[in-house]
């Protein structure tokens, strides 16, 4: 049987497939549709210090091969998450990665401290790349200095593995990735949805309540792949690839480009079994090609 397990920093995953934050709720929403124990990890909706109402509707719009969203990090906040959402996930053996964000560096640290004190959290994923909030989010992930500063603050205070989720929308991803690595981040997730918009011709108004949003889905896969490849060339810490992954072939492309694991987002909506099918597809691919260990694929891009 081929070996599918991978290490994301200190975190050992039975396979490299996990949901992208924000597309999988708090896990429970999909628990009747797939076996959560089959996943490499569960990544939660982004959590903040206090509950957030998110952006006004419409929050979603489909484009050719893509989905624009403007959810605005609507979430229950860390207290409700701890009391009402996390307990359900403790029933599963799958490691739980809690995605989180703040509006200031202090707030990032405060949320991370609260979440890391909870039983049943394996790692934290800091969202430094949300296109849908006015303060924080993508602004924190766009300069070397701010990525270094926030990573440093988290690494100094938090004992759990820290994953930094970055954006493709930066002038030099290798520099930004090095900033996270240099301050001790255990892994990097790339990419978040890409800032984008759509306009209604009749009313000449934006089609999203938040005016602009983030584009996800197959439309952004080539952008994501190139960003992952560049970052993987620049840093030694593991990269979790995300952006338009819909099937095992997409996942393989990211692994070949240098990703150690992959996140599946938009594809869960149309087919809730996508992640399970990707895991099965990877296993079958390795068997068919006589490869014993998935790790042989990672970073195997030929010149």
């Amino acid at each position, binding site marked *: 049987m081929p070996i599918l397990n991978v290490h994301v920093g200190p975190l050992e995953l039975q396979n490299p497939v996990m949901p992208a934050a*924000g*597309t*999988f*709720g708090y896990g429970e*929403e*999909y628990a*009747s*549709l797939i076996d959560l124990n089959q996943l490499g990890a569960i990544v939660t*909706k982004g959590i903040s210090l206090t509950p957030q*109402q*998110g952006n*006004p*509707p*419409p*929050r*979603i*719009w*489909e484009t*050719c*091969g*893509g*989905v624009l*969203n403007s*959810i605005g990090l*609507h979430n229950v906040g860390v207290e409700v998450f701890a009391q009402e959402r996390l307990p359900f996930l403790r029933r599963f053996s799958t490691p739980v990665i809690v995605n989180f964000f703040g509006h200031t560096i202090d707030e990032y640290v405060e949320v991370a401290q609260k979440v890391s004190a909870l039983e049943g959290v394996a790692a934290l994923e800091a969202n430094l790349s949300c296109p849908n909030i006015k303060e924080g989010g993508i602004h924190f992930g766009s300069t070397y200095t701010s990525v270094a500063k926030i990573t440093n603050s988290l690494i100094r205070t938090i004992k759990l593995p820290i994953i930094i989720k970055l954006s493709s929308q930066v002038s030099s991803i290798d520099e930004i990735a090095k900033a996270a690595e240099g301050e001790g981040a255990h892994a990097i997730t790339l990419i978040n949805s890409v800032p984008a918009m759509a306009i209604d011709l009749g*009313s000449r*108004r934006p089609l999203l*309540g938040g005016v602009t949003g983030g584009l996800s*889905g*197959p439309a952004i896969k080539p952008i994501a792949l190139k960003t992952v490849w560049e970052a993987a060339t620049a840093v030694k810490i593991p990269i979790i690839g995300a952006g338009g992954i*819909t099937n095992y072939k997409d996942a393989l492309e990211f692994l070949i480009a240098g990703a150690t694991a992959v996140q599946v987002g*938009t*594809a*869960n*909506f*149309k*087919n*809730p*079994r996508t992640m399970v099918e990707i895991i099965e597809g990877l296993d079958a691919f390795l068997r068919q090609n006589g490869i014993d260990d998935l790790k042989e694929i990672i970073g195997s891009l030929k010149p």
Partner: protein
Amino acid sequence: MSNPVYLKGAVKENKSVGSVYHRLRISLSQPIGPIIPGQFAMLSVEGTEDIPLPRPFSIHDFDNDNDASRLDFLFKVVGKGTALLAHLTVGSPIKILAPLGNGFPDAPLGCKTVIVAGGMGIAPLFPLVLKLKTSQSSIAVLYGAKSQEDLVCLPELHDMGNISVKTTTEDGTHGEKGLVTHLLKHEENDGQAKRILYACGPEPLLKIVSDFARKQKVPCWVSIERLMACGVGACLSCVVATMNGYKRVCCDGPIFDAKDIVWGDDADS
């Protein structure tokens, strides 16, 4: 709310009704019932990567006698997704996530039940009428659309007998000319029987019905429509503003108590 199932189906029948409407009958690989009127399904067709999202449709008809192993959908061709569905031939595979959402609550016995449907709003209300007909003695359906050809369920409603059906069309080609909400004036509380209202249609219609119900002190249930992605409450795309903050139409609804809705939050409405 029942746990949704993601399963395969096959097109059993795909009939066009008039120029832009379709009635799609799907047989499921396993029964998923029972269905509650007002619940919906997410439909998707494989091999369509340029259409990344499934499409939500009200379940228009079902066979709860067979534990719902067959579902009917009534839809209007408005874009890429519906055009794709309209072209499916008999036997074509289709993926279904269902049943989703809460469904309409029952009417208390002995109520005068008033059902207000605007255009495609008839889709989830039709099975509600069928269900309530078995227990309620007085059902009035107020059914409005742009033109006569848009009153797609009218023959079936007439066939039911025992219910009152009043129509309006904006162009006057059938029934009273104007909007269906104009018929509400005939449904004012006469103090004789308790009343209950159910409505589905464009949001301005729902708001008028909701205002009417509040003034008349009559309970009113509305089916809210939003663009959706996951259908199971995970992505938070389909929210509607309520007195208690944003709620997810897909799983906190799509049926809401009209007095809880904060109208006018959606730029589409």
